[in-house]
């Protein structure tokens, strides 16, 4: 240690005592990918009395130390925000964070998402489309075995993937996977997907939670190829997972993982602060301060395309009047929503479902729609409408407050926005797509195309504002076959502009995904598709 210091002339991370190491780590972890700022350096200088140059060196060496090889051993407890007797081990039926997380611990997919959502090989060691993206070939790994010892083959893949198709399928992602006509076994370790429409994004879709591969003929009995074996599973109580000693790649650093649920948000925050839980998902904005003030936990906040949205049905009054929709869009005080209601943990929305989290397909060129009461007043007046009713259930973070803010701002321009609060229970069947104006959210999809197709393709099952635009439909399929990145971006921009101008969606903001984890947990991925790094953490985390 001593001579290292004299060589570099600077204090390095390894020279610090454990308390100061923890401090550096905390600052680095808070940034999660971003660079440390001057304020962080100042904070560290104040705490340790080092110079600015040393502070910067500490961050660099600290970052290196943190990127070190993961340690093996230890166990963690994770509490999700929702669980019950309907907890699932059968991937096509996965609907909640706790299912996704158990799925990630137990099974593998053909393809997995990197932090930037590009598809990476998992059970498929290579995957390639043909020239017009109507046929995909997947070469499978040969060294993979199931938890019961039997070898993994193409039959397992064909069986698992075909479960999203056909009349009897009750798969949650049946419509997302509808572009595949048939899964075909080519060899013992090679399969082909035959498509009915070109889809250059198929590999990305295969990383979705529900696309985990199960053993041929099984319906999710907990036998997987994944990093942890299922020790016990009680729906609505907990599950215990032990390290898979025969895992086919490096991973599964922990000895054991226990997964449970704490539905009460206050109890969940208390549990992680008190150290009873190591990871908890979904922290509400009003608890941010409590989590940040606690020294032993880190608040993870990842930008995501989690809509805080309002659907206005265009096929019925008042939404059938385009000026009414414009009025509702202009009355949203977007900056205030992000800064005050979401406490800064969110991004401003532009009435399209695509956010910066979608990467290059996000259209930053599209002018931002601002809060403009005068324009709202003008449009409401032109529409000749002075009152409307909005159905709200707490389906998205802050959505109730967003409605109340809109109500207050509408009152100032003489518009009477009535808020009807309804329970989440039964909301998707009884209110959504039925009441003329209702709160909505959508899980972030891995591709901008699937995100828009699900909600805005003409005649789509879940076209929840009943907006049917032929050009939109045309672009959705054209863009999937487009391989030139500039042309592709132009198409995505045109689609976002169409939605921004014509659909009945009001999306004033996107919420970040907010979770809390104990400070000694390292290696959390940053996939923005779900809680705690897209529920990808079981394979990657380790304890410092």
């Amino acid at each position, binding site marked *: 240690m001593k001579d290292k210091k004299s060589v570099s002339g600077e204090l390095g991370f390894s020279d610090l005592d454990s308390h100061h190491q923890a401090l550096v780590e905390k600052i680095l972890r808070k940034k999660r990918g971003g660079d440390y700022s001057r304020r962080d350096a100042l904070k560290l200088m104040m705490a340790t009395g080092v110079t600015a140059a040393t502070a910067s060196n500490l961050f660099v060496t600290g970052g290196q130390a943190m990127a070190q090889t993961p340690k093996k051993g230890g166990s963690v*407890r994770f*509490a999700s925000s929702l669980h*019950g*007797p*309907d*907890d*699932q081990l*059968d991937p096509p*039926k996965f*609907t909640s964070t706790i299912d996704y997380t158990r799925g990630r611990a137990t099974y593998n997919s053909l393809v997995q998402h990197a932090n930037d959502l590009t598809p990476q090989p998992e059970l498929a060691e290579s995957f390639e489309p043909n020239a017009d993206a109507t046929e995909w070939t997947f070469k499978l790994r040969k060294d993979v075995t199931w938890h019961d010892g039997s070898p993994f083959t193409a039959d397992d893949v064909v069986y698992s993937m075909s479960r999203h198709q056909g*009349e*009897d*399928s*009750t*798969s*949650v*992602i*049946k*419509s997302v996977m509808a572009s595949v006509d048939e899964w075909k076994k080519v060899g013992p370790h090679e399969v082909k997907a035959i498509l009915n429409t070109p889809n250059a994004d198929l590999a990305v879709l295969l990383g979705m939670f529900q696309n985990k591969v199960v053993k041929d003929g099984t319906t999710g009995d907990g036998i997987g190829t994944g990093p942890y074996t299922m020790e016990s599973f*009680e*729906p*609505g*109580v*907990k599950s215990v997972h032990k390290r898979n000693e025969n895992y086919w790649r490096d991973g599964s650093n922990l000895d054991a993982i*226990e997964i*449970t*649920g*704490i*539905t*009460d948000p*206050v*109890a969940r925050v*208390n*549990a992680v*602060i*008190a*150290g*009873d*839980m190591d990871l908890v998902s979904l922290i509400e904005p009003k608890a941010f301060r409590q989590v940040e003030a606690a020294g032993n936990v880190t608040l993870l906040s990842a930008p995501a395309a989690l809509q805080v949205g309002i659907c206005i049905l265009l096929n019925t009054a008042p939404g059938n009047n385009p000026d009414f929709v414009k009025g509702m869009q202009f009355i949203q005080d977007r900056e205030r929503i992000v800064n005050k209601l979401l406490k800064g943990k969110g991004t401003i929305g532009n009435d399209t479902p695509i956010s910066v989290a979608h990467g290059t397909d996000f259209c930053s060129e599209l002018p931002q729609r601002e809060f403009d009461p005068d324009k709202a007043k003008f449009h409401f007046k032109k529409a000749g409408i002075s009152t409307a009713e909005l159905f709200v259930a707490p389906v998205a973070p802050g959505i109730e407050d967003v409605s109340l803010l809109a109500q207050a701002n509408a009152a100032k321009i003489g518009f009477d926005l009535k808020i009807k609060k309804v329970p989440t*229970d*039964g909301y*998707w*069947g*009884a209110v*959504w797509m039925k009441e003329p104006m209702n709160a909505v959210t*959508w899980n972030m999809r891995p591709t901008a195309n699937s995100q828009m197709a699900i909600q805005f393709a003409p005649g789509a*099952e*879940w076209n929840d504002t009943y907006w049917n635009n032929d050009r939109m439909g045309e672009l959705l399929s054209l863009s999937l076959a487009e391989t030139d990145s500039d042309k592709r971006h132009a198409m995505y921009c045109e689609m976002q502009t169409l939605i921004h101008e014509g659909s009945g969606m009001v999306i004033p903001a996107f919420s970040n995904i907010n979770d809390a984890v104990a400070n000694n947990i390292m290696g959390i991925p940053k996939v923005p598709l779900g809680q705690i790094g897209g529920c990808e953490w079981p394979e990657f985390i380790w304890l410092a």
Partner: protein
Amino acid sequence: MMAQMVLRRLGIGFIMLIVVSIIVFIGTSILPGDVAQIILGQSATPETLAALRAQLGTDQPLYIQYLSWLGNMMTGDLGISKAGGATIASLIGGRLGNTMMMAGIVSAIAIPLSVALGLWAAMHPGTWLDRIITFCTLSLISVPEFFIATILVLVLAVELHWLPSTAYLSGDETFWQLMKSLAMPLITLVIVVSAQMIRMTRAGILNVMSSPYIEMAILKGVPRRRIILRHAFFNAIGPIVNVIALNLAYLVSGVVIVETIFAYPGLAKLMIDGVQTRDLPLVQACAMIFSGTYVALILVADVASILSNPRLRQPK
């Protein structure tokens, strides 16, 4: 005479269970959305809904679903959870044990404690001690249990780190660890149920104390302590036992808030989850257990009060 009464009450209890099951069945069915819609949630399409309903058998008319449930129930088959696919027996098994353990420990602490405190207060009415007990019980009756629970967590778990904040059971803990994990919900529930039982014990005894035969005993110079323990207590036992029975039934079926706050896997939470997913067989099974508990406990309470009061044995 006694046996006849018990048999008759059991018969009525059985009919009541059937009526409750019909009411619960209808009640759960008229909620918006069915189990298929809840499972698929936002991702439901008419096609997948129809396929799932056919798989679950929920596309059949309600009365057929009810009769087939009743038939299975009579043969001891609780059925399969529509929402998750696990057997109801396996879902309920462990949780019933948890609920009974919690209810058992709470009543073992709370019943002697409250009867003793109630008696004590009744022996010294109007004294400072009585006033303190009355003040505390009245305040605690008025405070909702989630408030007590949250305050306890903040103080004992988050600030002082003495006790865990959740009643998480890993299944392999020692007795001491088990007690530690259960401590917080136990304290909350003891506080909640004791307050009512103390009030009732005190009021019941003071009520009897104003009757002529107690006056007679006082005039004859019997010491107050002896009057209460020998004469008043046994005559007041009827209402006290009934309050205890109701509180016990509450401990089995009504502690959903405490279960939620401490993430304790008990039966009450299971029933709420069942209602939220419109899981009819699960809701029915829980409802039967809860109603059965009420019927049994109230029967026991009635028998106890008859035994303690010979006058009730004679039909008027």
